[in-house]
């Protein structure tokens, strides 16, 4: 645990910059390679389809280094403890920034994914800004379109934390007459950040649900892809930033890293942040 005397706001800012820089340097696996798996963000995506709704639950499990970065972000007053209020503020921040981080396509036609619940954070029993993982849970839904049929391909494009190494998992469930099978997750294991969306695909193998509640195509399809092009390559204006820059949260993280690195160039001095323990 960290033990430090009280400090001024300016000191806090400087300290945050230095620590963020150190953390940023530490998570650069090219510099400190042995921490790679601690740098991963696991993306566990569960897709459930019934005759009315398609639910997409995302559980992001942050490895130790990634978690440290996020905890620093949560810990607004820099006292190395994430209070309930700080956690709630971070959850609101996620709700405000994680807009359209996922795209859902069925047979190439895009559906609007709508937040179903507010993002929630589980700090895993430790509210300190130390090396321990944490989880973020996000929930979305779309209305099941009338054209979803046996044989339909469901594609999820995941743009969450695209700049961070990832382990990706897709779980699918069909209910009330629907049945699904995972086709691929691409890539399932990408310890090297790609910067681009991660694609996960499933196939609908059975679609026996009642038709009536299902929503007509025109009501939900926000954009039809151009012929011959994969729809995910056609970002809408709101997606474009995400696809080129990894989305606002990623941009924010990058900004922090860049600022931190700049800060580090100017003021970094040996911090004693150990290679293995990350403690001061």
């Amino acid at each position, binding site marked *: 645990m960290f033990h430090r005397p009280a400090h001024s706001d300016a000191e806090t800012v400087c300290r945050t910059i230095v620590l963020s820089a150190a953390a940023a340097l530490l998570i650069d696996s090219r510099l400190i*390679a042995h921490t790679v798996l*601690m740098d991963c963000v696991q993306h566990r995506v569960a897709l459930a389809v019934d005759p009315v709704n398609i639910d997409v639950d995302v559980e992001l499990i942050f490895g130790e280094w990634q978690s440290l970065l996020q905890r620093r972000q949560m810990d607004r007053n820099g006292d190395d403890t994430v209070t309930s209020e700080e956690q709630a503020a971070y959850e609101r921040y996620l709700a405000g920034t994680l807009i359209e981080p996922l795209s859902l396509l069925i047979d190439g036609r895009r559906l609007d994914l709508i937040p*179903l619940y507010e993002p929630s954070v589980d700090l895993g029993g430790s509210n300190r800004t130390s090396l321990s993982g944490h989880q973020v849970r996000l929930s979305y839904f779309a209305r099941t379109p009338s054209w979803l049929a046996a044989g339909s391909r469901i594609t999820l494009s995941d743009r969450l934390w695209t700049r961070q190494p990832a382990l990706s*998992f897709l779980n*699918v469930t069909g209910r009330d007459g629907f049945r699904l099978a995972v086709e691929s997750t691409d890539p399932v294991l990408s310890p090297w950040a790609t910067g681009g969306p991660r694609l996960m695909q499933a196939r609908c193998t059975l679609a026996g649900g009642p038709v009536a509640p299902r929503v007509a195509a025109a009501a939900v399809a926000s954009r039809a892809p151009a012929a011959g092009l994969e729809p995910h390559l056609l970002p809408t204006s709101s997606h474009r930033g995400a696809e080129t820059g990894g989305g606002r949260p990623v941009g924010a993280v990058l900004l922090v890293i860049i600022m931190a690195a700049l800060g580090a160039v100017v003021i970094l001095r040996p911090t004693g942040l150990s290679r*293995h323990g990350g403690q001061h």
Partner: protein
Amino acid sequence: MRTTLTILSGLLCASLGASPAPAEAVNAAGLAGLLSREHAHLFDPAGRQVLNDLNRGLREAEEQLRKATAEGDKKAARDRLEKGKADLIALLGKCPSLMRVTLAEGRLTPPQAGFVTLPGDRGAVLICLDNGPGSIQFVTAQQDLTEIRGERAVVAVRGIGPGSNWILISLTGVPALRTTLALAFEANQGQPVSWPIDLISQDKARLKIRILDEDGKPTPAMVRLTWATGGDVDVRPSNAVDFSAQFDSQGAATSHRIMNIPGGLWGYYWVVPGPFDMVVPAGEWRIMVRRGAEHVPVQDSFTTTSNQTMEKTYTVKRWVDMRKLGWYSGDDHVHNRILSDDDARRLMTYVKAEDIHLANIVKMGDIYRTWFEQRGFGKEYRVIDGDYILSPGQECPRTHQQIGHTISMNITSMVRDTDKYYSYDWVADTVHQQGGLWGYAHVCGPAFHVHRDMSVSIPQSKVDFVELLQFAHLGTDLFYDFLDLGFKVTASAGSDVPWGGTVGEVRVYSCVGDGEFNADRWFEGMKKGRTFVTNGPMIEFQVDEALPGDEVRVSGNRKLRVRARAWGDPARMTPIKLEIVRHSEVIRAQTGGNGQAEVKLDFELDAGCGFWIAARVSAAEGLSAHTTPVYVVREGLRFWRPEAVSRLTDKTNGWLDEIDKIVAEAKAANRAGKVETDRAVKQLAVQGDDLLKRVAAARKVYAELKDVAEKEKETRARAETPK
């Protein structure tokens, strides 16, 4: 009275240091979502469904409003939101536990809330506070009562505005029996107005669970216990094994393990060693009990009643017993510290709960240090309990940006020398001298540039196995490439716990035949390549009488009989598809019909000029399995895919080029003095020449292979010419 309460609450807030509950004004969707996800118990089943629909409808309308550009569209969205809000209020008004209170002139009426019964140690209080004329507000607050210091508790509720305030207070850590709280409403920019409330935590129930195997004996098992009434709260069984410290704070260092498997079994589980008996909240419960891939998972739901005991006995039955067919499950990649008998006992319970017969417990290292210490290596350090074995191994060397991660099994000592850390061949040779097996981790990804050392060591015949299945993903690209070049490689699988989900979520089966199972025989099966990997369905595969890993030697073209069977748990592995893969291409496939959990193929095939041939399976929801190939070897010819040799040697030479490049870069960085703090790169520079010698040797093999391919052309042409 008013003054007293105000002063009381102010004093309490100030003097007790109570952490104020985060309270905030939310919109209708925010309240509906919170109610729907966490506090649906406030409503009856019909009300829950309405709530769920309302939440979705409100959020859809919000999205509609966010995207609308035309005024007409905006109005439609706003109207829809207003309608949803009105419907929500109507629903809230019918909530049986709703409390109504009026705030006028700083006074609350009624002055005290009275009693609220919570279903357990968590729950919610729903209040409609009428604060005079004004609009409608939705306010949420949450408080963990265990976080409040002192003996009395105040829960601050901020954001109260004029008008009707619908307030939802989420409470956790509520003590048993009666708890008196003060709700401090902060309204009208005045002093907080306190409203005493008594919480009655419903009397607990008692839950006794027994899990039996098919012989009626208690067995360890993986258990997920969910208190549905409290908002799908995961409850830890009272006797759940805690082995989290044995994960050395690495990865997901917890005893609450997730099962990474497609379908309904996905999710978190505890390791339960035997029967448990615990006090639980009353209400609706769900339980999932599972025991590895060969058993049918048990799901149940039940209701516990205050002051009554619920006894449940679950028998976990097998849908298949692979032991009877001579195949025993293993996991080649389990990280766990074993320094004491207690450590061993906990891990053994876990392995038995997942029904993994041989777990390769790997001490991990990189060029800096090691993790997951073991008491020792070799037979004397195996931990054996019936037909379950923990066998110490290693995952080292591991280089992430350079040439990949390696796994060793059945070793007699840790093989690690950081002064020759990039000499993976030395490690392989030493492991083999110890009688062990050596291979690569994460080949299914592929990850950590493992393809680079594969391109070096596989041509030198150093490699016994590769991890083909991991993290729910069967990845065959590299496997097929090297098989197509005529190199034998055995399929293996490992969970990589604690980075992976749970032991045995992917598994490798080794054939030990008819004799008694023991570790040596399991490793012997691995060495022979008599394996298949799976995360659910099972496979049998034979070419004539040859099993996976065997060679069928032919002197001329003749018919071979290919037999394969894929089968799975009928309840969750249909449809099932069986494919026969020869030289990376599917030559036969059979898909079972709906509900058909077994498919077979039995056909004849020309031996031709030889090939590798394997079976693979895909089952419902993305489950998969794959065998090691049978190698059909025609005299004088390799079993490779001749038309791919040129392409594949170019590819592997390209991977060797990558090694040249990283060594050159490391040397340059070293000369420039830039890598003194980066031991991995520093040592790559220092040890690079040795690595490059191995690269050169591999290049020579690939060049020779091209020559062999040329020379074989004539023989193959003759062999393929009809007589």
